[in-house]
């Protein structure tokens, strides 16, 4: 036993270092491998240490598990990653719960139940089960088996509260009234399972990553609890590690979406989302965060920036220049497309960009730039609207029909930044926003560019 612990410590150390490395782009991959080695050590140590055990059974179990896990991991599409993590995590939580249950049945059978043991078992089962069901709901939502829309109904909170109370009650009952602990145990199991569902159901698909991260932290806690059940240092340390670090990560993610954890977990948010999409007529527009925009830029080589009146309103001339400069340091080609009537006076954009000392040779006028869009990876539209409205090309009925426009839609991706879906000077809607290769990043141009720069640097 003693030496096994030694190996557990070793494993723990590898986990710690692994996690550290995982949070730095350059070392991430090595970190992951480190952690997996740690796991291997822990497993082997356990196998060696635990005498008289049914290797056959275990090996079978492991093989089955490995196959399932591996296939999943290989098959899944990149877009499906989050939900993958969700199920895996679910299984982890499930395992903890099962182990605890196993202990429950065996130990209690042997009448060896101490209140400490029982309470730890209770905790482990509770958290484990909750994680299990919760994770699967999350999976379902992301996979589209369940509506990604938040599912809310009256008195939801009340219900949750009730369930929670029951759960606690069962747990306590189990410890205090051993004679009919089996019932309590069952009750606990069931309520926990239900809560797992009711907690996740009301949360919108967009917020799932946060939820998964939270559940991940839970599964860590479950493992730690199981560690107490088995008085096993390895489980305790690793579990605690994951539990704690998971919580931190969850927080970081919330901050990223600048939301509070509470705000994410208690569904309210989901609703906002649908309401905004009301104003957008039939067009279904894709609204992205600056983080995602940053990734698009990361993979682009040629970028054309299209400034408009909005850039002037936001006084974002300096911000845009920083972004451009940064992109150039990354070896990308950056040009500015100046539409003759962008802004509100002749040469408005020139005045604006000159203020930020944008080199003249980067400014291209309509005739020079339009051919350039053909092989442009990203066109970044900053507070411009009418001057990039394709209606001017084909829609005879449009008041701006015949006005020469910038053919931004020719470029591979068009990223449009404006505050709302409101029209520009000409007061007409812009179909460009709905195009397949268009992406909206809403917000004040200056703010958006500042965030974008930060995210670019964080890549």
């Amino acid at each position, binding site marked *: 036993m003693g030496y096994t612990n030694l190996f557990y410590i070793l494993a723990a150390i590898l986990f710690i270092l*692994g*996690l550290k490395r*995982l949070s*730095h782009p350059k070392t*991430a991959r090595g970190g*992951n491998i480190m952690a997996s080695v740690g796991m291997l050590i*822990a*497993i082997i140590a356990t*196998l060696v240490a*635990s005498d008289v*055990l*049914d290797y056959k*059974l*275990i090996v*079978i*179990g*492991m093989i089955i*598990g*490995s196959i*399932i*896990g*591996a296939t999943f*991991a290989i098959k899944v599409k990149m877009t499906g*990653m*989050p939900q*993958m*993590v969700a199920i*895996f*995590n679910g*299984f*982890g939580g*499930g*395992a903890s719960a*099962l*182990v605890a249950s*196993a202990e429950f049945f065996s130990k209690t*059978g042997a009448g060896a139940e101490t209140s400490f043991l029982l309470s730890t078992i209770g905790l482990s089962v509770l958290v484990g089960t909750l994680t299990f069901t919760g994770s699967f709901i999350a999976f379902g939502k992301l996979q589209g088996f369940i509506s990604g829309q938040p599912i809310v109904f009256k008195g939801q909170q009340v219900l949750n509260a009730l369930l929670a109370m029951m759960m606690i009650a069962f747990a306590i009952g189990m410890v205090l009234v051993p004679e009919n602990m089996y019932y309590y145990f069952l009750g606990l199991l069931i309520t926990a399972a239900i809560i797992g569902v009711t907690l996740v159901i009301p949360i919108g698909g967009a917020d799932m990553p946060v939820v998964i991260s939270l559940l*991940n932290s839970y599964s860590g806690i*479950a493992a730690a609890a199981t560690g107490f059940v*088995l*008085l*096993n*240092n390895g*489980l*305790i*340390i*690793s579990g*605690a*590690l*994951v*539990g704690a*670090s*998971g919580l*931190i*990560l969850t927080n*970081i993610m919330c901050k*990223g979406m600048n939301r509070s954890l509470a705000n994410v977990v208690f569904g309210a948010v989901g609703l906002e989302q649908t309401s905004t999409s009301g104003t957008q007529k039939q067009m279904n527009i894709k609204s992205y965060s600056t*983080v995602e925009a940053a990734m698009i830029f990361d993979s682009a080589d040629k970028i054309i920036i299209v400034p408009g009146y909005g850039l002037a309103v936001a006084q974002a001339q300096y911000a845009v220049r920083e972004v451009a400069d940064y992109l150039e340091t990354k070896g990308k080609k950056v040009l500015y497309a100046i539409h003759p009537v962008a802004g509100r006076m002749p040469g408005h954009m020139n005045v604006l960009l000159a203020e930020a000392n944008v080199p003249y040779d980067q400014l291209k006028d309509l005739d020079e730039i339009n051919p350039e869009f053909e092989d442009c990876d990203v066109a970044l539209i900053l507070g411009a609207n009418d001057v990039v409205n394709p209606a001017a090309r084909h829609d005879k009925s449009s008041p701006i029909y015949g006005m020469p426009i910038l053919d931004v839609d020719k470029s591979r991706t068009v990223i449009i930044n404006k505050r709302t879906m409101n029209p520009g000077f000409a007061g007409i809607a812009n179909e460009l926003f709905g195009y397949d290769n268009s992406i909206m990043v809403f917000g004040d141009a200056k703010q958006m560019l500042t965030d974008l720069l930060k*995210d670019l640097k*964080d890549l």
Partner: protein
Amino acid sequence: MDMINILTVLILAVFVGFEIIAKVPPTLHTPLMSGSNAISGIAIVGAIIATKVGGEIGTWLGLIAVIFATINVVGGFMVTDRMLKMFRKR
């Protein structure tokens, strides 16, 4: 093994957990989550032990536990590795 010690260990471990993750670039959120999730598959150790100590029901629960945990561990680490491979700079 006395409670106090376990407690000590737990607390310290929690502190380490809180500290090791400070700043994480958005791109790494998912991989990190997935990686640490794989670690939480440590439950496998428990599962293995369970199969031994478990007795009838225990053994079977243990077996399922082993399967579950293995899925978590193997799948977790592999998926993480796949994600991270993507991020390699071209």
